[in-house]
């Protein structure tokens, strides 16, 4: 009897201690959606709620009061992260509405990209990429994200192959009969003429 009493108080004590979080405990994913976790625990208490992408992301800084001197660029491709949080002076991106120079403090923008040259200016150094298409987001906190499907440094492009491809697709465009063929040939012509322009112009 006595022993049991002791064990139960021990159990209570232990539970009490456990219930209080340790100061060294990490709060689990502080920026995850709390409402979601709560709703999940109510409906399926036996399974841990799944992680959401936000918990794997580094938090971005909030918009600073004064314009920072550098632009932070993320340039990602499906198979690589070309630039990851790199601080540069300026990038020029080929938006569908025309080339767009982005400096720190640029107004927040979403831009769709067309085939063309993206250049990254860092001091006196300029890196040029030819990108196929994609999206660019410029955030208010002087962060710029550029997502492209394919990108190559401009110096790795063979000019003679570009000419050959341009001729091929121009010929295809003139002989295309269906709308689909026409559209495909038009894309080919657009990409190759943009490549040609990037190399020569």
């Amino acid at each position: 009897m006595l022993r049991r009493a002791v064990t139960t108080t021990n159990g209570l004590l232990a539970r009490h201690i456990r219930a209080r979080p340790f100061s060294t405990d990490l709060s689990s994913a502080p920026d995850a959606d709390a409402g979601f976790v709560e709703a999940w625990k109510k409906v399926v208490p036996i399974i841990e709620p799944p992680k959401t992408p936000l918990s794997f992301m580094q938090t971005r800084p909030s918009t600073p009061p004064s314009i920072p001197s550098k632009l932070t660029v993320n340039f990602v491709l499906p198979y690589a992260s070309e630039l990851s949080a790199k601080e540069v002076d300026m990038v020029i991106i080929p938006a569908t509405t025309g080339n767009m120079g982005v400096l720190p403090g640029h107004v927040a923008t979403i831009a769709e990209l067309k085939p063309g040259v993206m250049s990254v200016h860092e001091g006196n150094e300029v890196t040029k990429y030819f990108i196929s298409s994609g999206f660019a987001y410029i955030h208010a906190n002087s962060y710029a994200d550029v997502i492209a499907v394919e990108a190559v440094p401009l110096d790795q492009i063979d000019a003679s192959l570009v000419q050959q491809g341009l001729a091929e697709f121009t010929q295809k465009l003139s002989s295309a009969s269906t709308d689909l063929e026409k559209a495909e040939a038009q894309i080919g012509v657009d990409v190759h003429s943009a490549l040609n322009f990037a190399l020569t112009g």
Partner: protein
Amino acid sequence: MAMAALRREGRRFASPLISPRPVTAVRSSLISEDETPFGVRSISTQVVRNRMKSVKNIQKITKAMKMVAASKLRAIQVKTENSRGLWQPFTALLGDTPSVDIKKNVIVTISSDKGLCGGINSTSVKISKAIYKLNSGPDKENKYVVLGEKAKAQLIRDSKKDIEVSITELQKHPLNYTQVSVIADDILKNVEFDALRIVFNKFQSVVSFLPTMATILSPEVVERESESGGKLGDLDLYEIEGGDTKGEILQNLTEFQFSCVLFNAILENACSEQGARMSAMDSSSRNAGEMLDRLTLTYNRSLSLSLSLTHTHTHTH
């Protein structure tokens, strides 16, 4: 001595009946199962030996599978880690909205085609079913899109009517973005949705995989949320370049987001699959090794017993 000889004779006559294999002289001198009384011992050692042989073969197979998984893992892990930057800009722009209130919910469950990879597929299915439950209610609709044979086999049992699209054999060829965008296109064409929930196992290490759910909203929901100043209120602050209307740009944007997130998710899950298979095969070859040790002990013990029995026999007679 004479008895033993007689017995040996008798055995030779009976041998076609007892064992189909011809008894070789070398074997009978090494392991004298032929000389044991009435074959009791010899049968038990025979059984143990067969068992040992099969366990040894199983161990060989699991070891080979582990090697294969390890080399596949190495290749796919590089790809996966390189693709991790791809979805981040979208989350930075559109945020993370797991608790958004919508009507038509489509759960994209990613699993593997082959088994023997621990519990990652059943985790995916369990999480998917829980999301289904979480979003069910009056005038709400849930559908499944299943990628991979294993989740299909599990979901078809009780949710056959809810499976809208199922795609298998994703990994016959090494994965690339073009393939995944074709799959994404296929899914987008065939389902109507307000939100897509991609369920997959995110690879953390060879022994740890995190079940993850990524949410992709339809362009209409994105527009509604940003205009009403809900979860995506910040999106209204962005200027939009290109395209004729905001809706058009948002459609392009969400479709591109889906293909990018799906690409990373499929790679993460494939990576988890190889990791899980590697550790599963590692533990089963270790298990087989332990079993083999035990069997060897049993075998040797009964063998020495039978030897000593025949030994005493020969001496008493």
